[in-house]
């Protein structure tokens, strides 16, 4: 069974026909080739599939593509594009690179999107707030220590 949806993906209008059971994560990956969104568990636990839906982070394995008709979805690809003010990367991404806040990179796109949500709400988070803010994103490698460092540095820079 299929349905046609219209939505905005990474700032561009998008119309697509999807099998009604298609998860948002699979829609993005398989139909739109936006493979920066990853699939790690499909039970809402790992956060590798995190995307921004109408301004808020969600786990795209717990959302049906058919249900996001009319919504705006931003993936790591679109966010990176948006974030490019000068240079190639957003300051969050620069800080991740500087502190090697990633190893295999599988959790990273989701982690970056969770960090941007956190910093949007709390520009100057405490260490505990950082850790709670990324608790929905598992990093098995696990770069938590350097992720925390990276976020602290961004917060420090923006408060200067």
């Amino acid at each position: 069974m299929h349905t046609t949806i219209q939505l905005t993906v990474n700032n561009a209008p998008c119309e697509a026909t999807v099998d009604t059971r298609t998860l948002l994560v699979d829609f993005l990956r398989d139909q739109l080739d936006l493979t920066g969104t990853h699939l790690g568990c499909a039970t809402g636990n790992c956060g590798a599939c995190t995307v921004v839906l109408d301004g808020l982070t969600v786990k795209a394995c717990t959302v049906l593509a058919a249900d996001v008709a009319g919504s705006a979805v931003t993936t790591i690809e679109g966010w990176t594009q948006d974030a490019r003010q000068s240079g190639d990367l957003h300051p969050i991404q620069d800080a991740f690179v500087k502190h090697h806040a990633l190893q295999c990179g599988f959790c990273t796109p989701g982690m970056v999107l969770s960090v941007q949500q956190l910093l949007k709400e709390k520009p100057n988070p405490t260490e505990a707030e950082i850790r709670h803010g990324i608790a929905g994103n598992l990093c098995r490698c696990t770069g938590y220590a350097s992720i925390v460092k990276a976020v602290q540095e961004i917060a420090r820079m923006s408060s200067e």
Partner: protein
Amino acid sequence: MIRAPLQFHRPHSIDEAVRLLSQCAQDGEDAKLLAGGQSLLPSMNLGLVAPAHIISLNHVTGLDAIRRDDDMLAIGAGTTHRSLAESEVVQTYCPILSETAACIGDVQVRNRGTLGGSIGHFDPAADYPPVLVLLDAAFRIVGPNGERTVAAKDIFVDYMTTSLSADEVLTEIRVPVLSPDTGTAYVKFTRVEGGFAIVGVGACLGLNSDGTCRSIRVGICGAAPVPVRLTAIEDTLKGKTVDDTFIEAVADAAYETAHDPVAELHAAADYKREMVRVFTRRAVKTASERAA
């Protein structure tokens, strides 16, 4: 991945949703309402449930409204955990509900999951049910025969079973406005951050001007297949001085009530029962510290 094909419905009103539910029931087809999907989608991805129809509530407007209605707060079933946690109205008039919402899952789960969905799913370890039970919340439900209101003590029937029938939609949850001097707390014991509660305890404590107990209500998840409320002792403690003995009496009562906890892999029944005591103590203590 969802294993079985499904028909997706996008109603724009509650009535339409109810009609769709009834239609499916008549056709003998399994239908599920979809709210935030934070419980339903993982279950479908694992193949634990495979409804033939999904009826999304995410396109019904107004289901996420929060209003003050005299001495009650009326909260739309579609209100997300995040909105509940951040709502100034809820923080002011029923802070325990905000505190509870804020400790559910993680940021992404709270951004998407809803109060109504949590009740519809009714996991024995879910955080809202014990709190709604202690608040004597009322549940507005719309079905093919119109609307009815169910009291908290009647909605959570048995292990993962509510009194909602398959063709009904929960639309609103009504909780009392708490007097500003009430001390409230919800504390929760999990294995890792963002996990479900092994035990969760909510407490509301009102004090008389002399520091004695004006009212106390305690609701607990993890003590039994359904949330328990310490009704018996709540009355007898009125007028008592709130001190360590008082707190211990509540904790003991909680322990006695928790005679049937659902055993888990890392929490056998006897251990859970002890944890009910510990976390009841902590909840009441915090509530008493917060009571003006």
